[in-house]
């Protein structure tokens, strides 16, 4: 077969700059051939090399007493949870594939993150998702398309997670025009393992055989990593072949077979074939092992004949792994993979010369120093635009709305409405550990393997990040930590997904830089190291970049089952208290966006010191048995948070509330989004103890009222607002389902 000649046009088509090409020539001491150019192209793409973001990612705190595997060392970080047990977790995006093929794009995103976790030797136990779509409400421009993307993504996640038997126990979903045509699909997976089960992705031991296990290689997903490192355009739909097709049943077999293989002790190194497939797994394992690797493509199981070395190396067919086995244990591998009816082949061996050497049809088709692809990838320090803080909102420019109707509208808005339509499509109960199901501040899961109660929350706020990127970074960390504290958990660590536009644009790079700094600052304050994550750049559609949307997932540990706390009021007769009292304007609030259609103002700043103090005090109150329910006051402000307390318990419960007076307009008092506030309910007999604890710690605490009755009544400076909680419940509970099921979209067959 004749390979294309290397021309400037071919080089440019591979996304390689002229300077990068010179560097490749220097590394090789010659011109690359077509196959080698393809290898450099995917390995040096943003998706694999983080060439635009790496200097920024170094700002994250990554160490701590419980870190067993640090960010960047392996496929996922690993954290100690006590008694010899650990958790491996990570979040990853599949935005671009989901934009062109929502069902398969989302499904394979789930598959990829699950592989990252079991590659570490961990048994995956649950998933979370963080999703963003364009508006889906009737009458919004592009609503039909957005609903199609939304429905497709949800059923894709359901298809993969349900089949493999992993519960999706929590998440968040926002709808905003900025994500039209460029949805965000971030999926988090957590696995459980014993310390001595941690597996490594290094090719160690010269002469050790290299096995290819799992699904056959096909032409699907060719160069998906490079595709993900470009902006989406009108023509992106023609890139559909760059989207892979998922087979969760194959992944389930691969998961079970790999965990059985790892338990057998014959594995020297293991790496999944995700982005950049066989290319990435071979050069990364060799580079990590300080070794070389020699692979013969003729031995690779293939789905079809006539595939070129270029295609085999760049294919992103799913459900495949590379395993380096201790010499002499080859039969054990064959036995286990035969049991699970999975293809397997010994395709090469580990060498000592540091070279990734690829053979096909008896000839060497690529010969590249392995570390040049990983460690010597170019790093760019992009230019950041100067930042002018946004102008604070002039409240006199905001007409007074019908505030009574506004609360119902907010609760019925897809972003704030109950997400039952989503999570009822996910088997969120399999593995019998879902103790706090989707819909509370944090999900709580009993990992039966180790008997630990784990809490997890995923948060991001593109609106705040757009207006103030540093605050956006701080805010998502503080909110995730606050959600964990509300559930009774001590936060352990975090993983981040940075969803941004094209970093070559100075204003976009500035958003990325400032958000990362905000996340890093907050993670230091909460003592939660970042264990790894994902960067998704070039999230742009023909109308421009998305609002910058960093997303943080945080994992915590609940020491005692009795500490598990939920957000809903538990019945009448309890006292309602506000912990952490701050006021703010309507800047960057959902009220201003949803009711008035305005994305503006200066977001109130997170006071990290006060936030840490609040959360520690709340946890101590929970540990002392004082708290009946706890709910984070966030999107939608105080009125929405109070309504959620009333309607998200086992049964709707009313409350009679008197709000503190901050001498602001009523809409501001009800709906501002100052961070650092939690609403708790307590038994009357605990009020004095709670007040004393807060006073001692210096946390502002105010008694707001009591629970009970059929109405939520909020009194403000003598004016009373009143809502029937059953009505609020119906608006909140049914709006998303009504919207989606009333307008039937053809779903991808599965």
């Amino acid at each position, binding site marked *: 077969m004749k390979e294309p000649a290397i021309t400037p046009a071919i080089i440019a088509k591979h996304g390689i700059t002229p300077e990068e090409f010179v560097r490749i020539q220097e590394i090789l001491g010659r011109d690359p051939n077509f196959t080698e150019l393809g290898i450099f192209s995917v390995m040096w793409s943003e998706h694999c090399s983080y060439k635009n973001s790496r200097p920024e990612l170094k700002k994250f705190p990554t160490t701590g007493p419980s870190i067993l595997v640090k960010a960047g060392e392996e496929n996922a970080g690993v954290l100690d949870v006590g008694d010899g047990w650990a958790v491996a977790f990570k979040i990853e995006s599949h935005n671009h594939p989901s934009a062109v093929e929502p069902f398969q794009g989302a499904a394979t995103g789930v598959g990829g993150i699950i592989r990252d976790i079991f590659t570490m030797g961990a048994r995956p136990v649950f998933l979370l998702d963080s999703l963003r779509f364009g508006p889906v409400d009737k009458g919004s421009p592009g609503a039909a398309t957005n609903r199609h993307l939304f429905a497709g993504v949800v059923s894709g996640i359901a298809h993969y997670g349900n*089949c493999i*038997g992993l519960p999706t126990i929590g998440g968040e979903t926002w709808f905003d025009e900025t994500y039209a045509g460029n949805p965000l699909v971030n999926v988090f997976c957590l696995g459980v393992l014993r310390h001595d089960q941690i597996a490594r992705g290094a090719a160690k031991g010269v002469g050790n055989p290299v096995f290819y296990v799992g699904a056959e290689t096909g032409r699907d997903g060719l160069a998906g990593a490079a595709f993900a490192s470009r902006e989406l355009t009108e023509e992106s739909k023609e890139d559909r072949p760059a989207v892979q097709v998922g087979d969760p049943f194959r992944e389930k*077999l691969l998961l079970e077979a790999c965990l059985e293989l790892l338990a057998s002790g014959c594995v020297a190194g293991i790496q999944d074939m995700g982005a950049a497939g066989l290319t990435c797994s071979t050069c990364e394992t060799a580079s990590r092992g300080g070794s070389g690797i020699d692979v013969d493509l003729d031995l690779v199981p293939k789905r079809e004949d006539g595939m070129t070395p270029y295609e085999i190396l760049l294919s992103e067919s799913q459900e495949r792994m590379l395993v380096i086995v201790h010499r002499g244990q080859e039969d054990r591998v064959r036995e286990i993979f035969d049991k699970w009816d999975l293809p397997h082949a010994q395709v090469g061996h580990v060498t000592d010369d540091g070279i990734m050497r690829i053979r096909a049809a008896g000839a060497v088709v690529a010969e590249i120093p392995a570390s040049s692809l990983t460690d010597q990838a170019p790093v760019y320090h992009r230019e950041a635009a100067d930042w002018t803080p946004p102008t604070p909102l002039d409240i006199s420019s905001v007409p007074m709305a019908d505030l009574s109707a506004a609360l119902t509208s907010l609760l019925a808005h897809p972003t704030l409405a109950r997400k039952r339509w989503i999570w009822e499509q*996910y088997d969120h*109960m399999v593995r*019998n550990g879902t103790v706090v199901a989707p819909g509370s501040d944090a999900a709580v899961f009993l990992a039966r393997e180790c008997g630990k109660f784990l809490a997890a929350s995923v948060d991001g706020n593109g609106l705040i990040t757009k207006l103030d990127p540093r605050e956006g970074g701080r805010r998502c960390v503080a909110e995730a930590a606050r959600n964990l504290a509300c559930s009774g958990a001590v936060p352990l660590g975090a993983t981040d997904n940075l969803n941004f536009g094209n970093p070559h644009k100075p204003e976009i790079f500035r958003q990325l830089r400032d958000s990362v700094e905000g996340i890093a600052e907050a993670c230091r304050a909460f003592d939660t190291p970042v264990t790894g994550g994902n960067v998704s750049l070039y999230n742009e559609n023909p109308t421009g970049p998305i609002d910058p949307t960093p997303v943080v997932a945080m994992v915590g540990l609940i020491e005692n089952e009795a500490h598990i706390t939920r957000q809903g009021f538990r019945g009448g007769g309890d006292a309602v208290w506000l912990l952490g009292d701050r006021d703010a304007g309507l800047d960057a609030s959902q009220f201003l966006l949803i009711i008035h259609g305005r994305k503006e103002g200066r977001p109130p700043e997170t006071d990290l010191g006060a936030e840490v103090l609040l959360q520690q005090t709340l946890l101590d109150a929970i540990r002392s048995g004082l708290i009946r329910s706890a709910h984070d006051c966030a999107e939608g402000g105080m009125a929405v948070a109070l309504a959620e307390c009333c309607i998200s318990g086992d049964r709707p419960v009313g409350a009679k509330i008197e709000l503190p007076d901050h001498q602001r307009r009523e809409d501001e008092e009800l709906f501002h989004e100052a961070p650092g506030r939690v609403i708790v309910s307590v038994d009357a007999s605990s009020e004095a103890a709670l007040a004393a604890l807060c006073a001692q710690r210096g946390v502002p605490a105010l008694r707001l009222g009591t629970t009970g009755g059929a109405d939520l009544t909020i009194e403000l400076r003598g004016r009373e607002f009143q809502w029937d909680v059953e009505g609020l419940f119906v608006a909140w509970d049914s709006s998303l389902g009504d919207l989606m099921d009333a307008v039937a979209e053809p779903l991808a067959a599965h």
Partner: protein
Amino acid sequence: MKFAVLRFPGSNCDQDCLRTLRDNFGASADPVWHKETSVDGYDAILVPGGFSFGDYLRCGAIARYSPVMGAVTRAAARGVPVLGICNGFQILCEAGLLPGALVRNRGLHFICRPVHLRVTNTVNPFTRAAKEGQILRIPVAHGEGCYFADDATLDELEQKGRVAFRYCDENGAVTPAANPNGSVRNIAGILNQQGNVLGLMPHPERACEERLGSTDGTLFFTSLLGAGLASVS
């Protein structure tokens, strides 16, 4: 009493069933791989939920050909209790151990939520600890749980008392609104002619602990284990 919990390559509730049997009821339970050809020595067989062979075409259509299903069929004929949950129910129907079929949910979505069931047969090894008409709250999680059979089969099931459960509301009323998947006549579970094979879509193993929201599933296991009967009879 010793349980066999079948394990197909895509089973995903096998571990939940094993743990529930062992940890919540102190029962002896072994996983049995689908390539096994015998289930001799087991006093009851549990066919768990999941996606036996990916089930991209018809759920359970490939699983019925696994070697172990021949052994299950022989054991069922000998009177050994066989309990099929969710995918297990689908497999038992495909294998001909139970009549009818499970098809795509009305509404086309996968559904995972707690539902209410009305117990309509208590003279079988699986629900003898229940009271006739008792209402249970147990989760479902399936994409293809809509039970279908022709009218003659349905009439026979009803006449012989072989409908074990119907979907109902929290007060026990069997209504269309309480039917999560469109099953004919709200049928959630059925028995074979001998009464020793039960298939149902809901997951009793997910309702055996207060912390998971319900303990109504325990009566299946106490019935099978023969415990707790004294208080009922």
